C-alpha cells in the first residue's frame, strides 16, 4: 500500500519511521487520556486505590486453594506463585498498553474510527492508546508482588542464565499477549461482534498460565505450545527456571524461544492488522 512513497515522504519531512511515529502518537494520545482522567481527581484516586486492592482478590483464590491442599498438580505454593507472577505481570503490561484494543469494535460501529484515520498518525497507536487508563497499573503491581513473593519462597538453584531468563520472559510475555490483542482487534474489522473470542486467549490464557501445566489435558497444553503460543509467555521458561521438565514432546530449548516466538507473533499481528485496515477501507464497515 504505497510503502515506498510514504517512506520517501517521511524522509523528505525528516521524520522518524513507523515505529517512532507510533510511539510518539501513543504518548500523545495516552497523555490526553491521562489528563482527561485527572480532571476527575477524586474519582481517579478512589478508583486507583480500589482497583489496586481488588486485584488482589484474584490471587487470594490461589491462597485459598493452598489453604486446603499442599500441592496442585505436583507444584508447591511458591512454584505456582512464580507461574502466577510471571504470567500476571506480562498480562498486566499488555493490558495497560494494549487493553483498549478490545473496545475497538465500538469505535468502528459509531464511526469514530474514521476520524482517527483522518489524522496524520498511525492508526494502531491511536487505537491502542485510546481510553488509556493508569488504573490498570494495579494489575502489574499485583503481578510483580506475587512474583517477588514466589521468588523469595521458591527453592531454585539460581544460575546467571536463569536470572537473566526471568525478566526477558516477562517482557516477551507482555509482547506475546500484546500481539494476541492486536490480532484479536484485527479480526474486529471483519467481525465486530466476535470481540469476546479474544478474551479466551487473553484473560483465558492468563488464567491458564497461572496454574501448572501438569493439571491440564495434554491436548490443551499442546494447543498453547503449537497453535496459540501462549506457553511461551511463562510456562516454558518458568518450568526451566524451576528445574522441571518441559511438557511432553516439547524440546528443552523451547524455554529460550520466547523472544523468537514474540517476534513471530508481532509479525503475524502486524500482517493481520494491515489486512484488517485494508478490508475496512474497501468495505467501509
Amino acid at each position, binding site marked *: 500500500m504505497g510503502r515506498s512513497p*510514504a517512506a520517501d515522504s517521511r524522509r523528505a519531512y525528516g521524520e522518524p519511521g513507523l515505529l517512532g511515529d507510533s510511539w510518539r502518537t501513543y504518548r500523545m494520545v495516552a497523555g490526553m487520556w491521562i489528563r482527561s482522567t485527572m480532571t476527575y481527581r477524586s474519582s481517579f484516586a478512589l478508583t486507583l486505590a480500589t482497583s489496586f486492592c481488588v486485584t488482589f482478590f484474584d490471587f487470594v483464590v490461589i491462597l485459598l486453594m493452598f489453604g486446603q491442599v499442599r500441592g496442585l498438580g505436583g507444584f508447591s505454593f511458591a512454584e505456582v506463585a512464580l507461574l502466577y507472577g510471571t504470567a500476571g505481570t506480562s498480562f498486566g503490561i499488555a493490558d495497560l498498553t494494549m487493553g483498549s484494543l478490545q473496545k475497538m469494535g465500538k469505535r468502528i460501529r459509531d464511526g469514530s474510527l474514521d476520524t482517527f484515520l483522518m489524522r496524520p498518525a498511525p492508526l494502531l497507536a491511536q487505537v491502542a492508546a485510546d481510553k488509556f487508563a493508569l488504573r490498570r497499573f494495579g494489575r502489574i503491581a499485583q503481578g510483580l508482588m506475587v512474583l517477588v513473593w514466589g521468588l523469595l519462597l521458591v527453592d531454585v538453584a539460581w544460575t546467571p542464565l536463569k536470572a537473566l531468563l526471568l525478566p526477558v520472559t516477562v517482557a516477551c510475555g507482555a509482547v506475546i499477549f500484546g500481539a494476541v490483542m492486536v490480532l484479536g482487534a484485527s479480526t474486529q474489522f471483519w467481525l465486530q461482534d466476535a470481540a469476546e473470542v479474544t478474551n479466551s486467549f487473553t484473560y483465558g490464557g492468563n488464567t491458564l498460565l497461572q496454574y501448572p501445566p501438569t493439571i491440564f489435558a495434554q491436548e490443551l497444553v499442546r494447543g498453547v505450545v503449537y497453535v496459540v503460543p501462549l506457553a511461551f509467555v511463562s510456562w516454558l521458561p518458568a518450568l526451566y527456571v524451576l528445574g522441571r521438565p518441559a511438557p511432553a514432546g516439547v524440546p528443552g530449548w523451547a524455554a529460550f524461544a520466547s523472544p523468537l516466538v514474540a517476534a513471530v507473533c508481532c509479525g503475524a499481528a502486524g500482517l493481520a492488522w494491515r489486512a484488517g485496515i485494508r478490508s475496512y477501507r474497501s468495505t467501509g464497515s
Partner: protein
Amino acid sequence: MPPFIELDALEKTFTVRRRAGLLRREKREVRAVDGISFGVEKGEMVGYIGPNGAGKSTTIKMLTGILTPSGGRLRVAGVDPARERTRLARRIGVVFGQRTTLWWDLPLKDSYRLAHRMYRIPDDRYERNLARCVDLLDLGELLDVPVRQLSLGQRMRGDIAAALLHDPEVLYLDEPTIGLDVVSKARVRDFLRELNATRGTTVLLTTHDLTDIEQLCSRVMVIDHGRLMYDGDLAGLHAVGESERLLMVDLERELPPITDVPGARFVRAEGPRQWLAFPATTSAAPLVAAVAARHPLLDLSVREPDIEAVIAKMYGGTRDERRESLM
C-alpha cells in the same frame, strides 16, 4: 494544470449482506458512488448536496483517503488519497457536524495543543493560526472551558478551528450548521466566507440547508443514487428543479385567497395568514410590494425551498425506486 480535486469516473461498490430467512444470507452489490467525474479548482467553494444515502459521505471518505475506490481515478492536490492517506491528512481539514473531534473532558485549548503536535505544525504558524481562529470565531473566552460544557454552536466553532490550525489547502465540511441557532449559523458562514476569500482555502461542503449554499457557494453539485445529477450555480438548480419559495403573509383580517398578484400562486390560508408560492429564481421584493399595495399587510416571511424538495421535484421519476440507505 489539472484541477486541485479531480474525480474521473469514480466508483465505490459495497457488498451488502442481509439475512434472508433463518440461515440464508443474501449478497447484493450496492453502487454507492457510480461513476462520478468532476474537478474543483483551487480556491473554489462548492456545495455537495443530495438526499441521505445518495453517496455524499462515501465520496468524502474517498477524498480523505479513508475508503479506497473500487474504480475510476481520484487525485487531491496531485496525490492519490487512498495511497498516501497520512501524508494527505496534513493538507486537508475535515469537520463533521454531528461528530466532534475535540476532547470531551479537557479544556478546548488542550485539543488544539494535540493538533499542534500531531500535525507537527511549526510553533509560529500554530500561534498565528490559533490567534486568527480565536479572533474570528470568538473563542477567547472558551479556550479554558472543558468541551463538554460548550454549547453546540460553540463546539462547532471549536471544531472548525481545530480543523484549520495546520493550514489545510482544502476543507471538507459535513453539515457544519446542523442543529445550530440562527446566530451561530451566521457566524460560521461569515467565517467560512472570510477563510475562502483571504486564504484561498478550497471548501467542499455537504449540507441540507440551502441557505448555506446560497450564502457560500458559487457552485453546487447534486448527487443522487451515486451519480452526479447537476453541476452548476444555484440559480440553475432552481430553474432545473422548478423550485418554489414560499411567502407567508399575515393580513389584518381573514380575507379571500390572494390570487391577483402576478407570478405568485395561492397555496393555502389559515385565518388571516396566507401562503403564496413563487419561483425561487425570481426576487421576492416586487412580489412583496405587489401584495402590500393591494392588501392590508401586517407581517411577512419568506421560506427557502429545501434541498430534498428541489431534488424530489427534479428527479421525481427516479425517487420511488427501492434503494438501500447507505451511511
